[in-house]
């Protein structure tokens, strides 16, 4: 029994490292594809980048705004109700910056992008592969890594950065508007504490997180999109793409926060 368990654990560890090695090979192929970067005509990837930005960024706006409003409102209501009990009601702005700007903004935005666009990227590439569209691009002399992965990374970085900023703004101001329906907070005090709490490090941290998420989300989802060898494997790899990207996002979030705020 014990032998079996150890055997399964060893097998899982082996599989994990094999997966890491394979992903490293995929990253290597991306670096290799930069050899043909100077021949790349931007007009050929422009439409893909614009469409991806529209889908990942613009089309996600209603969802981002709604979730930012609800989260911002909840945090402000909780803070204004409970902070006075501890005599720290003047720290509402600090709390908002710490929770929304530093952590929830980037994290929730990344989660929404992974669930909407990450799954779409993996499914689209997997379907294109099964329909031999990827093969068709290759035999047309098109560098599929540059043509498929590169515009998605560009679009993802632009979209995630913009969405995080919008999430933070809506979280602050919309949350405030929602909160004043239940508790009274003087507007000037709210904004004053908010401005005092927000530093350049917060802005830089947001920028780094959007850059890292913007690269990792399309990269991992494209990697899994290229994996299926038959139709029935498509949902398996799309699911893997979403779940593993989520795990990586949480890990990266902790790492970047530790790097900036410790």
């Amino acid at each position, binding site marked *: 029994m014990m032998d079996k368990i150890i055997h399964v654990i060893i097998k899982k560890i082996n599989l994990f490292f094999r997966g890491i090695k394979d992903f490293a090979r995929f990253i290597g192929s991306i670096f290799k594809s930069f050899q043909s970067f100077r*021949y790349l005509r931007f*007009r*050929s990837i422009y439409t893909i980048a614009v469409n991806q930005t529209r889908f990942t960024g613009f089309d996600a706006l209603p969802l981002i705004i709604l979730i930012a409003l609800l989260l911002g409102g909840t945090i402000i209501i909780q803070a204004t109700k409970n902070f006075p009990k501890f005599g720290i009601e003047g720290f509402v702005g600090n709390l908002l910056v710490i929770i929304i700007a530093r952590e929830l903004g980037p994290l929730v935005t990344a989660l929404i992008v992974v669930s909407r666009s990450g799954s779409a990227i993996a499914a689209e590439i997997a379907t294109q592969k099964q329909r031999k*569209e990827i093969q*068709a691009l*290759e*035999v*047309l*002399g098109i560098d599929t890594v540059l043509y498929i992965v590169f515009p998605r990374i560009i679009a993802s970085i632009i979209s995630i950065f913009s969405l995080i900023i919008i999430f933070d703004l809506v979280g602050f101001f919309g949350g405030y508007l929602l909160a004043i329906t239940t508790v009274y907070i003087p507007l000037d005090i709210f904004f004053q504490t908010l401005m005092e709490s927000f530093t350049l490090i917060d802005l830089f941290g947001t920028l780094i997180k959007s850059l890292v998420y913007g690269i990792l989300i399309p990269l991992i989802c494209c990697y899994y999109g290229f994996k299926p060898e038959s139709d029935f494997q498509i949902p398996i790899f799309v699911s893997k793409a979403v779940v593993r990207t989520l795990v990586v996002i949480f890990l990266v979030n902790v790492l970047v926060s530790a790097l900036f705020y410790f």
Partner: protein
Amino acid sequence: MDREIRLKFDSVTCYGSHSISLIDFSFALKESENLVIFGPEDSGISLICPLIVGSISDFEGTIYYRGRSIKDFDYVELHNYRTRLGYLQSGYGLINNMTVEENILLPLRYHSQLSIEDAMRKVDELIKELKLHHCRNLRPVDLLKYETLNTAYARAIALDPDIILLEHALENQCLINAQVYLQSLRKRIFREGCSVIVVTYEPERYTDFADSFIMIYKGNKVFEGDRGAFLEQRNPYLRQYMEASLCGPMKIQ
């Protein structure tokens, strides 16, 4: 005047999946020459086009393009080499989220030095030649089979390739509808000095313009000859194949 050898297989041996292989396979294709390669499903003909375009790199022997081994091409050279081939692949491989017009424009947009206006002019010419006006804004899912064939063919020849590779292009196609494609192919062969390799199960469809025929069975070349030899059908393998008979030197499982 001797015509230039565009493509040459020199003792190529390759093992694919499902025990499909090519064994010590050789041929040379000259400028303006048209070669039809055919054989049963498990004969190894499915390896020919992937070998030529460099999708399969694990093989013995040498494939030369204009005197240079394609194994010697670096990453960028391999991509450039592929732009000199017009490959109409089996299943056509049209990009489903692009219209007919965008599919044909794709290689021009990616590779050519043409401005978008000039590239569009070229697309218009191809659309006119292949009679695709009525469906130029449709996506592949809305196309009929011959429209899909014509679009894939237009995309394959958009960059005026040196060699056109046609892999099972006419399979499952109505011969009357496919005439526009065949006319365009003839025009390209006779007027523009293009070489063509056709990989097919139905070689008889190309008898009017093919210069030579090669038949493969279990990875080996069992017939090679010109149009006359093909039509005479003296070779027992060829005769069995053309008669679609189970009796003969080929053991069909």
